[in-house]
């Protein structure tokens, strides 16, 4: 009896190790764009390491079921099972969030701060590093990527299921939205 139990426990642990191994392999496909450990090196590609698990899982499923617009990601995630999506979300959520502070001119930063204080801080935190449960951290995220995202959210054809974020983006002037993106991009830890 005791031997059987031991065997079951060992088998379970072995299975967990195998699963972790598979996810790391799967995650490598993401790394080619989003960087090793989810820390992106390209200005238009977002860092995803350290984003909240629920946020990641949610957004990938929205792409999979065409609830959210995308050009490439919706195609990629359609090849993943929901379990794989959840496992990938958990994997990247475990990675440390590594901000990449980017420089911007002081005027833009000041304008961005005002916009962030007025419209963004309540969900993402004043510096983007203290987000709400359904909002991602934005401190040190790539500013150009955020700028492009906001432009997409401002388009009425673009499917953006997060009602409040879409509304906030559509209410902001393009220049303010851009400045807010620069402000978040300039933040470190």
């Amino acid at each position, binding site marked *: 009896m005791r031997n059987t139990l031991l065997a079951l426990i060992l088998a379970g642990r072995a299975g967990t190790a195998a699963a972790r191994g598979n996810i790391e392999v799967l995650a490598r496909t993401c790394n080619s764009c989003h960087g090793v450990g989810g820390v992106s090196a390209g200005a238009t590609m977002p860092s995803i390491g350290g984003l909240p698990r*629920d946020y990641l899982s949610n957004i990938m499923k929205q792409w999979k079921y065409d609830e959210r617009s995308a050009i490439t990601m919706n195609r990629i995630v359609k090849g993943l099972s929901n379990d794989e999506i959840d496992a990938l979300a958990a994997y990247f959520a475990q990675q440390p969030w590594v901000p990449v502070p980017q420089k911007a001119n002081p005027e833009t930063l000041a304008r961005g701060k005002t916009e962030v*204080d007025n419209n963004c*801080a*309540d*969900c*993402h*935190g*004043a510096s983007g590093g*203290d*987000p*709400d*449960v359904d*909002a991602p951290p934005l401190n040190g995220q790539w500013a150009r990527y955020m700028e492009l995202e906001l432009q997409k959210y401002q388009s009425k054809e673009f499917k953006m299921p997060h*009602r*409040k974020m879409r509304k906030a983006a559509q209410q902001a002037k393009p220049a303010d939205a851009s400045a807010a993106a620069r402000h978040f991009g300039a933040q470190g830890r």
Partner: protein
Amino acid sequence: MARTAKGIFTGLLLAGLLLPGLATATTATVQEIATASAEGQEALPIENHRCLRCHADQEEKFSVARDGSRNNIYVDPKVLEHSVHGKVACVGCHKDVTKLPHKKPLAGSIGCVECHKQEMGKLGKDADPKKRERLGVVLEQTENYLHSSHARPNPKDQSRVSAACHDCHDAHNIGTVGTAQRAEHRLQNPEVCGRCHEKQKDDYLGSIHGKAIVEKKDDKSAVCSDCHTTHAIGSPKDDPAKLAITKNCGSCHKDAQRTYLSSYHGQVHQLGYTNTAKCYDCHGGHTVKKGDDPTSEVHVNNRLENCRSCHKNANDNFLAFQPHGDPDNKEKYPGLWWAKRFMQALILGVMVFFWVHVLLWLYRELMDRIRGKGFKENLDQPDIVYFRRFTPVWRWIHALFAIATMALVLTGTSLLFSHTDWAKAVVTFLGGPKMEGIIHRTAAVIWLSIFLVHLAIVTVNIWRKRDTFNWFGGTSLVPSLTDLRDLKNMFLWFFGRAERPDFCHWTYWQKFDYWAPFWGATIIGSSGLILFFPEKTAEFLPGWVFNIATLVHAEEALLAAIFLNTVHFFNVHFRPERFPMSTAIFTGAIPIEEFKHDHRLEYERLLAIGELEKHLVKRPSRRADLAASFLATVLIVAGLTLLTLVLIGTTTMH
């Protein structure tokens, strides 16, 4: 261990440093928070409009937790604005929100009690008196709540109280007195209480109160808090709650409460005891319905069953009892009305006549004394010869009669005047209404026994002298025309138009004192027996007899108590010739000179037939005299005390 102690010390130090700051933040308004922030803090001030960005979002009124549970987070900004807390910062109450976005879920506890106390402390001398008054009400209610059963640990979850402030009050929607919000909250009361008390709510919704609230939106109908109070809510199994609920019924049903409190049920209840029928025992509590509703507990078809919950052997005659019988309502209760009018006329007639008699007598004796007339004790030659007025049997009978009567008056009036503090104190001292009833009935049995024993002795005495007994003679207590003449002559003397009349063995006022208990024994005794044995009585008499019996028992007893302790006391003890007291009924003898003055005809009669000697005795010993004076003093003081209590009761009765 040392580390722990150090940790606690550090914690206390930090708490000490932080608490003053917290205290300020507790009641901070929006403006105060904005200013504080502007003075150099990095974090953005958490103003209400930032909170309302999410919490006033009509499209997302619910937040969904990870376990799928939904939580209403919506706050109507217009409602909040008109609430008494409309100018308080959200974070003034939600103190765990120190940044945005905030942690989820928020802490359940809001420091209402502490905040209101601090608010009161902050009021300056020139503060708006209305604000002080309202805050005073809030603090009083807070105190009531803290002692209520809601503030005790929840039996199902000891980590929380049974109900906290926000379980009943929607803190974002507390209207000031007289506002629509307030009225709406009142209509919602059964719904709010019913969240926990589901069965009671269901019962209530089927009641006349519930239907008026829910169907007619009649906010004058009773809601839960009207009966159970808003904050001082106790277990309905405990006496304070039972007393409070019955009292609160009377806030609306004033007449019903007045008539209830004058019944035996209500009198016991008013003394603070709950072992008699209360409003909800007969009418149903949450299920109360109109009497003509066949499902009502007081409907004529269900009433007997209702009575039987206490009176096990109640029969159909109980149905004729009028639990709310009102002797002042002629249309509805004519029998009771006439009974009261008759008793009042009797009391008024007797008392007015004898009080006039007392006052005139007092006036005349004082006038005579001023003129050096009237009986005066000769101090140079004190009497050593006494006339024996009373044999030991009559002295004992009088003493027992006096004590039993006083016990009856004390125990009876403490029930009749149950509204007074003295009655409550007396009943508590005696050990409650049950003991009071036992004492009252024991005294009544003693009283009636003495009365019957006296009748037996009198009968035997008269039978022995049947051949020579002069029924209307001077030694007989039977009233005669002589008494009428004496009465007329007394009045002439009062007005100074004749000499004081001479009397034989008994005077007319003594005869009145003697015969009054015959009437009293008939009225009080028979009504007392009816009330003593209600179920036996109901076997052959209708229930309304109890109403009449209760009324006449009390009225006749009042007449007796007031008469004895005023008129009888004056005639025997307090008139100037006797003041401060006569001890004749205790020693059995009076000085021969006093006898000659008061009963000259009897003195002369005995002298003429040569029988005076047979009645003469020595002066009572000094010890006997002292004992008699002591006893008389005790009884007179007790009687006057009772008179005072009765007068307090009568004059304060509503």
